[in-house]
């Protein structure tokens, strides 16, 4: 398998799973591309025609300096500029929880990409739930490291919440996976029920397609 043999271990597991989902030579838009690690991975291993949008000017400039096609912008405003079906995949990696209008952003992703790939931290993870239950305070975990007043996250959700949103925007879930705290992928959706994923998954990755033509 790709992530066990060909690429260094430093890659994030969710990135490796996304790379596995993306077809070779496809057109990809990575919304909230950060330091460009995923774009670089997709360029190196899947030979994609990749573009990125990133909100932080410093990170944009660093991405461009390493040869990636990245612009400064944000998911809430700048997806509107792109034409329908401009990309094979529109990716939102650990970003949707920081957007102002997640539903609109997800709809935009499905408009400009033939498929959308979304990963997010799962607020339904048992660790988060117990922290809130036991301490009565907003959870602070490895995936959610900031105090409530300092976090960029505006719209945290659980895996079940996100599955509901997918139905709401008419997105078909082609594939979904969750990772536990040590970065291992949990069993497939079929063998383990959603409730278990929602409890044990720290992060989730969804591969979505539109159910109806635009």
């Amino acid at each position, binding site marked *: 398998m790709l992530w066990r043999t060909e690429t260094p271990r430093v890659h994030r597991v969710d990135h490796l799973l996304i790379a596995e989902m993306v077809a070779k030579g496809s057109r990809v838009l990575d919304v909230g591309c950060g330091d460009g690690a995923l774009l670089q991975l997709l360029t190196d291993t899947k030979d994609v025609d990749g573009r990125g949008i990133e909100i932080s*000017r410093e990170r944009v*400039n660093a991405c461009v*300096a390493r*040869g990636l096609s*990245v612009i400064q912008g944000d998911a809430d405003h700048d997806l509107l500029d*792109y034409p329908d079906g401009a990309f094979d995949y529109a990716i939102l990696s650990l970003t949707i929880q920081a957007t102002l209008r997640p539903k609109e952003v997800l709809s935009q992703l499905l408009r400009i990409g033939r498929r959308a790939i979304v990963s997010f931290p799962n607020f339904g993870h048992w660790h988060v739930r117990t922290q809130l239950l036991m301490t009565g305070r907003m959870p602070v975990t490895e995936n959610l490291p900031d105090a409530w007043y300092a976090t960029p996250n505006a719209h945290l959700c659980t895996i079940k919440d996100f599955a509901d949103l997918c139905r709401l925007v008419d997105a078909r879930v082609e594939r979904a996976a969750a990772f536990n705290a040590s970065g291992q992928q949990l069993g497939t959706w079929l063998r383990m029920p959603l409730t278990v994923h929602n409890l044990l998954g720290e992060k989730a990755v969804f591969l979505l397609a539109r159910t109806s033509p635009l």
Partner: protein
Amino acid sequence: MSEAQTRTGTPAGAPRPDDADVVAEVALEKPLARSTEVDNPSSDVVRFTESQPLRLDCGVDLAPYQIAYKTYGTLNAEKSNAVLVCHALTGDQYVASNHPVTGRPGWWEIMIGPGRPIDTDRFFVISSNILGGCMGSTGPASINPKTGRPWGLDFPVITIRDMVEAQVRLVDHLGIRQLFSVLGGSMGGMQVLEWAARYSARVYTAIPIATAAWHSAQNIAFHEVGRQAVMADPDWQQGRYCDGAIGPRRGLSVARMAAHITYLSEEALHRKFGRSLQDRTQKTFSFSADFQVESYLRHQGSSFVDRFDANSYLYITRAMDYFDLAAEHGDVLANAFRNTTTRFCVVSFTSDWLYPTRESKEIVQALNAVAANVSFVEVESDKGHDAFLLNEPELFATVTGFVNAAARKRGIGEPPKGGR
């Protein structure tokens, strides 16, 4: 001035200004630059004959005409490594070599040269003087073959598109089908956009820096101040000063001073000069250049007129004012880039108020609307519009990264020295 001084007296110790000190010092004994460079430049020049006219936007067929240019580096066997550098309002072809009139180093040596972001050990760099210029390409200072005298205001009004069309003839003349890159800042960036819009297949990458797809009302307004300053100078003589007369040295100098302010930022002016006095410890209670910033601007103005033709200044500022890429494409900027295959790298600077980031973003939005391959970087700098010509490491890192990635894709080899 003297009246005020009789009443208040000149402060003790202050130098006594004389009248000549009040007006910006411009050497009036020298005729305005109409050097031999106008017709016979020190650089290479390609001459197009009567049978190869250039159809201008205004409808005139210009012929004969000539384009002066410099090249740096070596064209590879595949002719795939050519880079065209487009210059700004008062630039010229001497991008990486000494200027023949001023003797000063090339105006973009920090960007172009061996081991620079545009590495001349790797790329074949072409830079030409624009049509309408005064450093060897045909312009209002050139001799009108029909009269045997300088064109002056009989020269047809030119546009950014005309400049680009002339460059296309030059690139054809050099036998180059596709340019690896076209880059430039300010008005140079306008030419880059025009190239990409009209000749996408011939432009592998485009790097428009500190520029806009159309000239704003504010920018037109500043240009009009400059033009009126030139025309208000009686030595301008309706543009007919070229026959050896002095020419509008004062007017052109004032135009340059006003324009120069727009190239800087309030922050940069404050940092550089503040309220510091020039070679004196006290105010002189006169209109001489008490402040360093005044002295600096006067110097900028007077040194400019030694190398630039006033009519050229009028024509080129006009071309910039007329520039509106969206208007050329049904008022939708995205239409200019439909089906483009060019890879873009758009750069702006935070303190540039002449071509603010907002206007670069419009270009990026139009490129996104056609799903073009675009990078966009806003460089943090307090140096204003001029930042694109200065030492801005973030700009160099951006251009280097973008160019190297594209060169790898295009199959252009690393420089022989093995890079930096």
